């Protein structure tokens, strides 16, 4: 994994990126302002018993128990931060938590819910901010955690670089994003229904990162000891419309810049019909796949293990074989 020119390459990427960091990203895939509005709506529709979100949040926070380090100060980026707040329950030694989202209503909801959770003595602060423009001083938090929010950023590497800069040395970046397999059934159903009713296709489901991209993203953002793993969840709904309701409640509605801004009623119904006829289970329920990519990365610190420089070995493998290989034969 550690090729000799890996470090140079990473440094080069970092440098070439930093110079462009403050310039507006040219490619705008998602309408961030619309996403804010959708998240405002999601704050009203929020379902605290959403098993998908709760499972992902719990899985993510659970990773804090795998490390011996404690994280006195943590920053929770947008996404399902309400679920994260509930699932911390004293894990990771978090003392100070900053919760951040781009939607004011979402932040307000979390602030109002705080009084029900005050038993675990975490000092929480709240702010409204954009992951792409992180207003956090360099080297100031031990943990950046993001649950199902970063897949809506236009500039994911930029957001991750900013998160890395916000971390103290040896700080942990922990994120869950939806992966490319997410909603593949809906993607297919939408395409077929659109072709049939309107004779053309427009994107209804956003492009998402693939698993192989996630590792590259972490390395590109300059994290050390990158780790990626994937989970797939099947959620069953009574009808395709219920799926759409669920997506709305999560704030995961379509926010592509190039979307067609209306959806014809019969196309919508056709999509639901295609979905049901193609993917419905025997008992009539509608399955939907959610692929979640978990990413972990650390900010560089000299205490971390790393591969030795190539050619720095002082003992030849042949000698080792002579020494130990001779004993076994």
């Amino acid at each position, binding site marked *: 994994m550690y090729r000799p020119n890996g470090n140079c390459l990473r440094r080069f990427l970092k440098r070439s990126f930093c110079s462009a960091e403050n310039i507006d990203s040219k490619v705008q895939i998602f309408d961030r302002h619309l996403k804010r509005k959708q998240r405002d709506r999601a704050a009203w529709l929020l379902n605290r018993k959403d098993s998908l979100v709760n499972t992902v949040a719990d899985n993510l926070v659970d990773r804090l128990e795998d490390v011996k380090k404690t994280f006195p100060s943590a920053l929770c980026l947008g996404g399902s931060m309400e679920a994260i707040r509930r699932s911390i329950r004293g894990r990771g030694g978090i003392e100070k938590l900053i919760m951040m989202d781009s939607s004011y209503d979402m932040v307000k909801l979390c*602030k109002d819910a705080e009084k029900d959770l005050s038993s675990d003595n975490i000092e929480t602060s*709240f*702010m*409204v901010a954009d992951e792409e*423009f*992180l*207003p*956090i001083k360099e080297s100031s938090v031990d943990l950046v955690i993001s649950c199902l929010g970063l897949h809506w950023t236009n500039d994911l590497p930029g957001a991750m670089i900013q998160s890395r800069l916000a971390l103290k040395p040896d700080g942990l970046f922990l994120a869950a994003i939806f992966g490319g397999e997410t909603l593949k059934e809906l993607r297919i159903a939408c395409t077929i229904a659109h072709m049939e009713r309107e004779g053309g296709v427009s994107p209804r489901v956003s492009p998402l990162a693939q698993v192989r991209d996630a590792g590259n993203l972490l390395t590109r953002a300059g994290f050390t000891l990158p780790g990626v793993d994937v989970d797939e969840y099947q959620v069953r709904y009574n009808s395709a419309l219920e799926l759409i309701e669920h997506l709305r409640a999560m704030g995961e509605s379509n926010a592509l810049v190039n979307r067609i801004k209306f959806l014809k009623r019969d196309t919508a119904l056709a999509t639901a019909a295609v979905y049901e006829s193609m993917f419905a289970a025997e008992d009539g329920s509608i399955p939907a796949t959610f692929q979640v990519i978990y990413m972990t990365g650390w900010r560089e610190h000299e205490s971390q293990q790393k591969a030795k420089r190539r050619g720095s070995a002082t003992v030849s493998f042949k000698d080792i074989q002579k020494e130990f290989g001779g004993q076994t034969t």
Partner: protein
Amino acid sequence: MVRGSSRVVEIISKTLSEMLVCPLSKQPLRVCEKSNSLISHAIGVSFPVVDGIPCLVPRDGEIIETDSDRTTADSFDAKTDHKTAQE
């Protein structure tokens, strides 16, 4: 600056005041109690604080000075310093 940071506590929490910087320039923010906002001198933008929650999305920010006032960085700095002194 010191005077500013001791006042911060009153409208936003201490933790936040220690960590927040301007989302665009990454420079320190000054708390303005009078307008209940956070001001980034580096780019001349004020961000509102609503109900103790600072709103730091670039879109929420308001440009304080007009473009014609901001001909050079130096004159801009002098102007804002003057303003602070008046307060």
